[in-house]
């Protein structure tokens, strides 16, 4: 009898670890997707609900490159980043720049308009069915790690996202650019007076944020559902990551994304009847109790 229960427990534990692993992987992708928003919404205080549209662009770029043009998957990732970043830069220069100083309501309406347009454009050119990228064979399948099933693709995601997260953290806190960005956000006028090219820094930041979203969309093309409604569907996840994580650091949104990813996978597995309900309720609770974010220091 001991053997049976023991076997079941370890089976259960393995399953749990696999779920945990999958949760971490989707949390990591979520972080990459939302990191740009953490900067534009968190630091620059711009409510950009259209962030997901840039992610979708990256996802579709990878699908297009790998399936139609035969570009290797690994090469398509940086291209997805560049395409989304270029889109971000163009939109920032032509449209977003007019709305920095406007009330939140107008930023919301403007970016909702962009989302509507992006959804319709994607639907028109690509169609409403789900799209998949071509993932190379060496990233497919699972291997056994001490009895825990580890998906190769998910391991790859965790590695890539981990590196990006550390790089971002270093750039924002250690580099000259990060200091200039924080100065420009804190007080644009004074920063300009000190010779910091505020407009150029904002454009660059916005472009990199959009590019990261595109990269996230490309990486997530395999584990998220890439359809034209992508920007609407994941908007709330990005917002949760930014609000729950707070905006005073990169590690806050990072932890929030991990938490959300794990909660999502675990919730779907263990409590399918409740599903996203818990996630939304938790978000409300955090908004009520710690409006500055769960992982931020109270001001």
């Amino acid at each position, binding site marked *: 009898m001991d053997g049976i229960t023991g076997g079941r427990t370890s089976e259960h534990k393995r399953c749990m670890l696999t779920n945990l692993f999958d949760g971490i992987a989707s949390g990591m992708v979520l972080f990459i997707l939302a990191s740009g928003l953490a900067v534009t*919404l968190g630091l620059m205080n711009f409510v950009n609900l259209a962030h997901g549209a840039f992610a979708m662009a990256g996802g579709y770029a990878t699908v297009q490159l790998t399936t139609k043009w035969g570009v290797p998957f690994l090469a398509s990732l940086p291209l997805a980043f560049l395409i989304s970043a270029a889109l971000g830069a163009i939109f920032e220069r032509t449209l977003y720049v007019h709305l920095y100083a406007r009330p939140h*309501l107008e930023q919301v*309406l*403007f970016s909702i308009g962009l989302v509507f347009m992006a959804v*319709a454009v994607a639907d028109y050119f690509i169609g409403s069915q789900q799209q998949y990228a071509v993932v190379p064979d060496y990233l497919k399948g699972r291997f056994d790690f001490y009895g825990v099933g580890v998906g190769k693709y998910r391991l790859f995601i965790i590695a890539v996202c981990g590196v990006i997260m550390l790089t971002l953290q270093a750039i924002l806190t250690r580099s000259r650019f990060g200091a200039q960005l924080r100065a420009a956000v804190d007080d644009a006028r004074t920063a300009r007076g000190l010779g910091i090219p505020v407009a150029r820094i904002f454009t660059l930041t916005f472009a990199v944020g959009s590019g990261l979203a595109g990269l996230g969309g490309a990486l997530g093309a395999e584990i998220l559902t890439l359809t034209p409604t992508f920007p609407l569907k994941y908007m*709330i996840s990005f917002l949760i990551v930014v609000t729950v994580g707070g905006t005073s650091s990169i590690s806050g949104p990072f932890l929030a994304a991990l938490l959300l990813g794990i909660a999502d996978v675990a919730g779907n597995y263990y409590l399918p009847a409740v599903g*996203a309900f818990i996630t939304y309720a938790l978000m409300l609770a955090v908004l009520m109790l710690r409006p500055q974010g769960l992982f931020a220091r109270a001001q």
Partner: protein
Amino acid sequence: MRWKPLLELAFWLLAFGAIFLLPRRLLLLNEIAILALFALSLDLILGYAGIVSLGHAAFLGLGAYTAGLTAKHFAVDPLIAIAAAAALSGLLGFTTSFLVLRGSDLTRLMVTLAVALLLGEAANKMQWLTGGSDGLQGVTVSAVAGLFEFDLRGRTAYVLSLTTLLLLFLVARRMMASPFGMSLRTIRDNPLRAAAIGVPVTRRLVTIYTIAAIYAGIAGGLLAVTTQFVSLDVFDFSRSADVMLVLILGGTGYLYGGILGAVAFKILQDVLSGITPQFWHFWIGLLLVLLMVIGRNRINGWFTALAQPFRRHVDREVAS
């Protein structure tokens, strides 16, 4: 300015006259009236109290499901079903108002969004009650007040919705012209000063948020009763976004904005989806982007310049 009441009278006469003038478009007109009521509800909190909401569909949806379920299970008069919708939505508005009052615009956006998502997800999961993603089917509605049966043309539906809209509009106008409405505008323009001159800010905002929720609940109730069907999309984010666009199209803070916006929006939708059925949201999105990039104030400025001799009340909306 003697002719302004005349213009209003003409507008409402035209709205009621449409029963005979446009007998083939009554279903569309019914949708317009309901959307107008929904937008009027948003105007109460956004235009008068300055509360931004990304989840106003929460009240519409709760109202729709309440009325639908009441009509389905208790076979009551549709007016009672709508009253139940108003009551429950009002209760939700009252409870959530305390969440919404805290924090900045951004927090409000997120909280209202989260409430709507929460309810949508609840309706999705409570399949035994709501029918889940299949929608609430088998809603049969008896005659209004035992007299007026619902017809396929939508005549009864339109008369019911339009009458409700007119009554609630008059109530709203009376409220906004009262000291209560004045104090709301004071809060919108400067909450700190409002509090300093003795306006009970929190109580006023809780009240108007609850009233707006009741209005939206009634709109939802009308939707359920007149279409005899409720689906999960009543909680959709795009509902909340659309109603915001409707209100912005028509202009905030003078009550007619929601109504005119609803007329413009539905006609636009009708025409655009006639051209490109699936992609009409593209044009709506483009319109929003253009409106916002050019700037609301500047556009209002054009209108004011154009309509200088006609519109005195515009001054008030430009101030927002």
